[in-house]
């Protein structure tokens, strides 16, 4: 005779442990939310002071950055950051996608894995090293261009763009390659069966089908390019003037560490203000990424 065991929960301790664990994990989960909330609050609080002081428009659109004379205009820096990021992404995206196609479709297995390992290494290298190499090799190389253009030799927007391209290529390549690899094989087969050449099949069917993945890679690359500070500071010359390709420029990100050590009072708050402007830029890009992923996702279903 089987003894029927009651299914009503006898032991109270078991449910207590469960509830505690539930709370613990909830707290862990909320850690990230709390961090973002605190970060947003403190970025706004610390950065807002200067913006309130100098007025949003004068701060964002002012041409002159002269903390000594309490003139805090960061338009040149905003434009420099935008141009540097745009320049880097416009170069890195096509190059990245072409190399991603090479890795995903055209290269023999062993070569692809070797290159992928190297590209991972490129992604892992600290940005300071890029700054060092840029300052020693890239900037002097650009002197000739500057001399030809009748400009003094110095760090430049071009140097910043080249460094940013090298830094965001790994991100764009790896995300694009994953996207290309995840496109179902039979699309390409169908294209081949219709008589398209290998490249036609890849660039007319597979790559367009991987569009949302590639766009996500682009947005991630843009985020990284806008956020880079150290390497850019070491190669761009850090002159707070309106950006020109072969002249020294100061990007928003570089403006913070360059004056940090010796800034105090209003000047330090101005650096917080720059941080806040960057923070808003990044949040916009993140929202953009989420839209792209959502839209991209829907299209693939």
């Amino acid at each position, binding site marked *: 005779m089987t003894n029927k065991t009651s299914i009503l929960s006898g032991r109270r301790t078991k449910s207590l442990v469960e509830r505690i664990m539930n709370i613990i994990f909830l707290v862990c989960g909320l850690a990230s939310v709390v961090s973002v909330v605190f970060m947003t609050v403190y970025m706004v609080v610390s950065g807002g002071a200067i913006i309130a002081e100098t007025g949003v428009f004068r701060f964002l659109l002012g041409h002159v950055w002269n903390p000594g004379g309490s003139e805090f205009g960061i338009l040149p820096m905003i434009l420099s950051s935008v141009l540097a990021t745009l320049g880097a992404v416009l170069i890195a995206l096509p190059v990245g996608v072409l190399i991603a196609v090479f890795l995903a479709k055209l290269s023999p297995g062993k070569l692809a894995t070797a290159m992928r390992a190297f590209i991972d290494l490129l992604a892992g290298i600290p940005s300071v090293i890029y700054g060092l190499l840029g300052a020693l090799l890239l900037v002097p190389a650009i002197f000739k261009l500057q001399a030809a253009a009748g400009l003094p030799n110095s760090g430049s927007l071009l140097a910043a763009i080249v460094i940013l391209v090298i830094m965001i290529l790994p991100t764009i390549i790896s995300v694009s390659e994953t996207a290309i690899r995840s496109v*179902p094989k*039979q*699309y390409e*087969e*169908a*294209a*081949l*069966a*219709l*008589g*398209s*050449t290998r490249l*036609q099949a890849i660039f*007319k*069917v597979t790559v*367009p*089908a991987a569009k949302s993945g590639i766009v996500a890679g682009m947005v991630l690359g843009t985020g990284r390019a806008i956020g880079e500070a150290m390497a850019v500071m070491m190669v761009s010359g850090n002159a707070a003037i309106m950006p020109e390709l072969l002249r020294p420029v100061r990007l928003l990100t570089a403006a913070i560490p360059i004056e940090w050590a010796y800034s105090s009072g209003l000047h330090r708050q101005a650096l917080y203000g720059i941080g806040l402007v960057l923070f808003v830029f990044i949040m916009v890009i993140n929202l953009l990424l989420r839209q792209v992923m959502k839209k991209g996702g829907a*299209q*693939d279903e």
Partner: protein
Amino acid sequence: MTPVKMHTRALNLFYGEVHALKGVDLDMPEQCVTALIGPSGCGKSTFLKTLNRMNDTIASVRISGEVVLDGEDIYAKNVDVTTLRKKAGMVFQSPNPFPMSIYDNIAYGPRIHGEKKRIVLDEIVEQSLRDAAIWDEVKDRLKKPALGLSGGQQQRLCIARSLATKPEVLLMDEPTSALDPISTSKIEELIDELKRDYSIVIVTHNMQQAARISDYTAFFLLGEVVEHNTTGDVFSNPKDRRTEDYITGRFG
């Protein structure tokens, strides 16, 4: 005997060590449906894929012997594979429309072969969809994504897509095995009409289908053609005992 559109002589194929096709000699007459039947793994799909060299995309494949289309050996050095595949269109087992609109799916073939003019493309798209007997169901949503269509509609779309490249041969790899009975019968009626204009080679598991729509049938077993004759003869009085066992369902 009707003229032969494609034939193979002493065709052997190796996947690495596996000897998938063993000395296959097969004639495929013009404007007829040749059905390839046989147990799974007998090499009928592999054979079909040699006819438009789709096997080339597989790394470890070695092919010997002759495959001739309109008198030309398709494995000759100077053959342009893209023209070959344009001439011998293929429809796959599971429908694989591109993740594009219905219009772009059909227009894909002509576009890659150089056709750019809009009015010509519109005409080709309409004609191909009519030929694939799906025009009425999609004519007012050509811009919608093709992935929104049902399984049967998608397969007919893929057929229309092949027709748009103006092939002369249609290679069909179990086109209806992933479809419901109603869609299957629609495809079979379509094949019946298409054979007036195209030479069709179809791989199928479904012997009733082979009997219904094919003029000739070849029975494959372990990479060899055991018997090849008119469909009537193969099904009513098979010469080889193995064919008889297969079509009466005793094995395989």
